[in-house]
């Protein structure tokens, strides 16, 4: 939901153009000077928030390395304190003091982590994959891998081990910004490895989600993660204290590779010629999904000023009946190339679909993509994923299932113990609880129902040798932990591969042909045939160029109005990009960008030739700047010049400015702040 409040719309004549132009240039210069070395602003933030013993050093790699060393030291200290805590009684004087120290260390670790992420986002730090940049057109920033200290002796030669901790910055995904690296502690398992706590939390989250959705067997969230929990907790029980294997276990973060690039080249709103539309250059791609109606999302609805556009694609018809599955997509790929839309005058704002009447029809459009499918659902991306990515992300499942199969056997006795633990100690009580809790189970209670038996009936029994674990099994679980740790280290590189492929797909030219049938209330209806091109450019697709070229043809030219068959020829070009993170933002997690665009068009209107008071050659140019001034609040500013309009030869210079509020973004950041405050 976005509310716009225009403070002023000013139309200026030639005589006032100079003044407006000077004011605009001055404002732009001030903004650019303030914004451009965004790195200076970000470094100031780092110096404010983190201890900076390097003083004025500009070597970001050295700074990152220093933070990484501090990070590793803090984690080791935390591990040592956790071990000490597990060895003393909760009633002892040291217990609360130690607990407090651990909490303080958690804060320090979190701050250091944020510092490292900020450093890795600075323009002069080039070790990470270049990102697709966020902006008003929704091109999204792929999060950089963040640095973490190498804790394994096997990888001691690496300067900085890279880990991926989930999307934290930029774009619309601010709701997942607090990545829950440290899940809530469990009183019955106070010294649990962080990966165990995270997995317990994951299981509980999934169970609650499925229970609320009314799914049968919501406990699947636990059942399907229990074996992984059993392996990690077995490692906790058997790995020697102070061993590098144990340090590796306590550094595991349950990492998954999650890519973060979105495509933004679809135009859902009306074409540039529809009344009320603000975009001057059409975008070539077509929306791929359709459903039965606007309400179920199958037909997309876009309201712009005084018109509403409904759009869809031929693929949507197939997907509506067969389901939008990968199989349907593969079998109907050609249909994804054809998009249709219709724009209606918006007279009834209370019931938008009711405006879809013949009388209110302004135009309908058929768009056909000529270039290939460059989405992640394309055959090309799937083949890439199968060949290059799947072997990498399969490492953790291979390590876990291989160990389980080899050591949890009837012969070793561990398989019987495991089945008893899973079926009788964990799932039976969990089922009983979920039956009574209905659709509103408590996450905390669920983690206790899984985590407490895991501790008392498994970890403690293994430690006390009540469950016999051979030396061979102990060695194998250590190797499994190392394999998983190695896979986590690789996650950043895997993400780079994915993002590079997505960037490569996104950078390809998109070419489409569009046919528009224009209904004119007063005048002659006409058709427009256009070639649409889009190309993302720049190292991280931070520039985008859109170009259109087309010809309009009257259906029935009115000779009395000097109309011929060909109405006009039009070419349009736009360049859009992002400048930098707005320096006015105060929330560290908000990476909203200052964005700018240049748009120009030329139209040769044949019926205006030799007509007094009109021009046949119509040119216009627009410059637009959007500056986020607070989180969720943007200041758009635009200057438009046209030498004439279709009906008047008077040139026009217009300056628009206003304020835009994005309630969704404000809410997401408010929720993120709450999560951070609650994190232990």
């Amino acid at each position, binding site marked *: 939901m976005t509310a716009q409040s225009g403070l002023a719309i000013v139309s200026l004549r030639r005589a006032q153009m100079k003044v407006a132009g000077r004011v605009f240039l001055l404002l732009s210069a001030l903004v650019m000077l303030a914004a451009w070395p965004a790195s200076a602003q970000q470094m100031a933030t780092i110096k404010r928030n983190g201890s900076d013993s390097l003083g004025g050093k500009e070597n970001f790699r050295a700074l990152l390395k220093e933070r990484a060393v501090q990070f590793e030291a803090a984690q080791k200290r935390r591990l040592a304190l956790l071990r000490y805590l597990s060895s003393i009684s909760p009633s002892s004087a040291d217990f609360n003091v130690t607990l407090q120290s651990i909490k303080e260390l958690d804060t320090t670790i979190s701050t250091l982590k944020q510092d490292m992420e900020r450093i890795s986002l600075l323009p002069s730090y080039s070790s990470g994959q270049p990102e697709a940049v966020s902006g008003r057109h929704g091109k999204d920033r792929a999060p950089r891998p963040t640095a973490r200290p190498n804790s394994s002796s096997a990888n001691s030669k690496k300067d900085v081990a890279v880990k991926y901790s989930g*999307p934290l910055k930029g774009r619309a995904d601010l709701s997942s910004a607090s990545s829950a690296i440290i899940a809530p502690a469990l009183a019955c398992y106070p010294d649990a490895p962080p990966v165990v706590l995270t997995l317990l939390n994951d299981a509980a989250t999934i169970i609650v989600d499925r229970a609320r959705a009314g799914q049968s067997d919501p406990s699947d969230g636990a059942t399907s993660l229990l074996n992984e929990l059993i392996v990690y907790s077995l490692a906790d029980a058997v790995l020697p204290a102070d061993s590098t294997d144990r340090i590796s276990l306590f550094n595991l973060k349950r990492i998954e590779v999650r890519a973060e690039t979105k495509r933004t080249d679809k135009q859902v709103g009306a074409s540039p010629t529809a009344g009320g539309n603000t975009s001057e250059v059409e975008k070539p791609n077509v929306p791929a999904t359709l459903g039965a109606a606007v309400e179920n999302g199958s037909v997309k609805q876009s309201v712009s000023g005084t018109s509403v556009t409904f759009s869809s694609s031929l693929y949507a018809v197939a997907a509506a009946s067969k389901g939008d599955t990968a*199989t349907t997509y593969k079998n109907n790929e050609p249909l994804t190339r054809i998009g249709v839309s219709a724009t209606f005058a918006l007279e009834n704002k209370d019931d938008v679909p009711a405006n879809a009447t013949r009388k209110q029809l302004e135009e309908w459009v058929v768009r056909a993509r000529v270039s290939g499918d460059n989405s992640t*659902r394309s055959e090309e*991306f799937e083949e890439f994923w199968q060949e290059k990515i799947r072997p990498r992300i*399969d490492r953790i*499942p291979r390590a876990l299932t291989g160990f*389980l199969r080899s050591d949890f056997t*009837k012969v070793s006795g561990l398989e*019987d113990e495991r089945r008893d633990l899973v079926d009788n100690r964990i799932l039976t009580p969990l089922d009983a609880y979920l039956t009574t809790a209905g659709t509103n189970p408590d996450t905390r209670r669920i983690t206790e129902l899984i985590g407490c038996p895991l501790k008392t009936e498994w970890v403690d029994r293994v430690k006390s040798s009540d469950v016999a674990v051979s030396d061979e099994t102990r060695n194998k679980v250590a190797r499994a932990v190392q394999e998983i740790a190695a896979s986590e280290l690789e996650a950043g590189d895997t993400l780079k591969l994915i993002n590079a492929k997505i960037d490569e797909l996104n950078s390809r030219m998109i070419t489409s042909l569009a046919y528009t049938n224009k209904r004119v209330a007063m005048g002659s209806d006409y058709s427009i045939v256009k070639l649409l091109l889009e190309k993302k450019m720049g190292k991280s697709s931070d520039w985008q160029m859109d170009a259109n070229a087309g010809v309009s043809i009257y259906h029935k030219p009115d000779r009395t109005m000097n109309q011929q068959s060909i109405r006009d020829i039009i070419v349009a070009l736009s360049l859009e990009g992002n400048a930098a993170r707005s320096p006015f933002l105060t929330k560290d997690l908000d990476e909203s960008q200052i964005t700018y665009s240049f748009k120009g068009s030329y139209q040769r209107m044949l019926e205006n030739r030799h007509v007094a008071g009109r021009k046949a050659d119509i040119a216009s140019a627009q410059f637009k700047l959007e500056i986020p001034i607070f989180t969720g609040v943007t200041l758009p500013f635009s200057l438009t010049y046209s030498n004439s309009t279709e009906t008047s030869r008077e040139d026009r210079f217009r300056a628009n400015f206003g304020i835009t509020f994005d309630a969704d973004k404000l809410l997401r950041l408010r929720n993120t702040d709450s999560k951070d405050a609650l994190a232990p």
Partner: protein
Amino acid sequence: MDQIRRAIYTVAASEKVIIEIEATKVGNFASFVLDGESQKPVKNNPLTYEFTISVGAGDTHFGMFQCFFPADAPDDANFQVFLQGSKGKTTKYTGSDIKKTDPIWRRGVEFRR
């Protein structure tokens, strides 16, 4: 094959198990690992895997599904697992589902003899 739970099944000796992973609103970015080995799909649309039970009585085959959602997949994108055995009950069972909004995109499954 009998379904005890979505992620736990009892199987017979030499039984053939067929697993399908249906992707909705996302590409076929799912894989199946069994007992430490990545499995090759026998069919791609939908992703289909087959294997034969080879463990003895009292032992278990351990499997895991690992999924991936690119960011341009909508929030309601998901993978749904279906399983079917060749002996005993040959019902096509509904297994685990993995949604893009889940905190973890990995699920275990076990086949007990």
